[in-house]
């Protein structure tokens, strides 16, 4: 160690400085851990609801459907079709045949129909995953005692059938296909509205707008709009898209007569409403990305006599694109999870047909989850848990594809 410097007044308390650092270090670590615990708790809670024992009773005892001693499980496709024909009304039978001719259906599909339409199992009680794993014997005993005729099965509510089946009021046959398609349709129009307008506005504000009070007001307003509660956007969407622009959003303008009479409460209205909702987020993120393009690059372009538009189009935009896409991903993720504005805009809670055009009635996954969780029966909460898993997977896959897209655009400086 060198001789102490002559300047007085330094208290070189290295130990104290290190201690302070350690305290903050621990604090930051705790923050992270708390976040991770919350995330794990959320996932466990959802998974807990999505699997477990179900006790159900058949409305029609399958034993009574046996033909010549052949139980229903072992009957041939033809026998099952005949059973359907004799048990269902001819109207219902013909409708099924029209959807997909029985000749084209596999035995499995027909059997499924028999279960759904004739046996019609009814849930009497459900258990979550944790009790199902730890108290299986107790559950079995309870079922035998309270519901002697009931069957007890360990089920995963999240199955491929669940994803591909349309909505239904029967929990055992309900699916989320309509909701998934509704979400995708809605998001499509959200992107179509928010991306071009958002990026366009960002380019204007960053590259063209002069520094004056008017543009500063616009900028401030955009920043504030990003924080407006989403329900307010719902009311806005209701006023503009559902009511004022009904002719457009219901498709009447294009001569499309909607038999389901959505009256403007369509995929298009919902998508545009969510588009307005995320527009400020897209603009702000795109502005950040455009601002981050180094000045040296703009100088290079202007220095060789490029016009402003050539500079923006060939250099600023391509180099800002990864950032713009990241911001858009965030915005879209938010839009996918929105519920409140869609309730106001008029999402349907119970439709069993798929949205097929921008002018269809719709429901979305969050709406479906919201509706199922608010039902008093436990089995609907299990359905909601399974739908939440579907929503999470949908979100993650949309994000992943956006990240891939972003990496394709990535450039180095």
């Amino acid at each position, binding site marked *: 160690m060198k001789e102490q410097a002559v300047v007085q007044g330094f208290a070189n308390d290295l130990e104290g400085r290190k201690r302070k650092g350690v305290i903050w270090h621990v604090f930051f670590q705790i923050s992270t851990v708390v976040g991770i615990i919350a995330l794990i708790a959320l996932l466990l809670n959802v998974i807990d609801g999505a699997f477990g024992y179900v006790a159900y009773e058949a409305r029609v005892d399958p034993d009574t459907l046996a033909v010549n001693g052949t139980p229903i499980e072992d009957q041939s496709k033809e026998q099952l079709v005949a059973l359907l024909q004799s048990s269902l009304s001819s109207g219902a039978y013909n409708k099924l045949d029209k959807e997909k001719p029985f000749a084209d259906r596999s035995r499995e599909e027909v059997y499924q129909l028999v279960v759904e339409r004739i046996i019609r199992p009814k849930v009497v009680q459900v258990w979550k995953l944790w009790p199902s794993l730890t108290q299986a014997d107790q559950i079995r005993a309870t079922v035998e005692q309270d519901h002697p005729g009931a069957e007890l099965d360990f089920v995963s509510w999240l199955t491929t059938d669940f994803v591909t089946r349309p909505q239904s009021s029967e929990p055992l046959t309900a699916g989320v296909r309509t909701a998934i398609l509704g979400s995708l349709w809605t998001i499509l129009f959200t992107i179509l509205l928010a991306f071009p307008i958002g990026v366009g506005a960002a380019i204007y504000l960053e590259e063209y707008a002069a*520094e004056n009070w008017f543009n500063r007001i616009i900028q401030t307003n955009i920043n504030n709009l990003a924080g407006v509660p989403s329900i307010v956007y719902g009311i806005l969407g209701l006023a503009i898209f559902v009511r004022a622009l009904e002719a457009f959003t219901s498709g009447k303008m294009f001569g499309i007569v909607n038999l389901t009479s959505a009256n403007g409460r369509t995929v298009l209205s919902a998508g545009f409403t969510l588009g307005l909702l995320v527009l400020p987020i897209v603009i702000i993120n795109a502005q950040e990305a455009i601002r981050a393009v180094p000045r040296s*690059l703009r*100088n*290079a372009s202007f*220095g*060789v006599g*490029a016009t402003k538009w050539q500079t923006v189009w*060939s250099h600023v935009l391509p180099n800002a694109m990864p950032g713009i896409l990241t911001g858009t991903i965030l915005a879209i993720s938010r839009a996918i999870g929105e519920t409140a504005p869609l309730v106001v805009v008029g999402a349907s809670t119970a439709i069993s047909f798929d949205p097929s055009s921008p002018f269809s009635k719709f429901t979305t996954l969050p709406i479906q989850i919201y509706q199922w969780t608010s039902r008093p029966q436990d089995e609907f909460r299990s359905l909601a848990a399974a739908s939440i898993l579907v929503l999470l997977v949908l979100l993650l896959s949309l994000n992943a594809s956006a990240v891939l897209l972003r990496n394709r655009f990535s450039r*180095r*400086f």
Partner: protein
Amino acid sequence: MNNNSDHKYVIETHDLDIYYGTFKAVTDVNLQVERNAITAIIGPSGCGKSTLLRAFNRMNELYANSSIRGDVCFNGQDIYAREVDPVEVRYRVGMVFQKPNPFPKSIYENIAWTARIHGYKGKMDEIVESSLHQAALWDEVKDKLHQSGLSLSGGQQQRLCIARAISIQPEVILMDEPASALDPIATLKIEELMQELKKNYTIVIVTHNMQQAARASDYTAMMMLSRDGERSGTVIEFDETTRIFTNPKDKRTEDYVTGRFG
């Protein structure tokens, strides 16, 4: 814009003042840039050398609130006149910057894009090759034309920027401390290149390096903060380089070039 070369001077300024907002950065500059020669602008940091250089092709307009008084003439025409498009000015008066700034595209595209935006319809390969030849870069990059311009070394990047600038055949090339980020060998290459280029182009270079000005330039403008206490720079002496370095008229120039000041 005027295309004639009858004027003795390519660029002339008359009583040029340059402002950033209300701050006057450069005061009262009268300068004549000789055709097919290298004119150096030297002086201490912050005296407005780069600002003056950027006024020659209206690049300073890209910086906030800048404005000028007086005029800058290119081949006798005022480039700040109302009817003159700054894009046209920059097409005729190219620029090379302090930090090499190739586009984040391939070497080939760096030049091809530049030619294309000016409506070049000829053979692209030819213009790429001839530009790289003129910038003395062809032999080093001919086998990797489709690699990123950013994969080159600093000196090569700077020569790529020069190739890009000359690909559109400007009359003047402005160089803003083009070698300050480079090592001595790369610097020497740039200086040799400038000697080659002045046969076809007029070069104005801002430099911190007095040896560079003495070695490479034909004329030298000495800039300094003006006397009257304002933080505003002006050209205090402008002459042939040999005269500036051997027999300067102004005491401050002499102090500066001999290293006693600045």
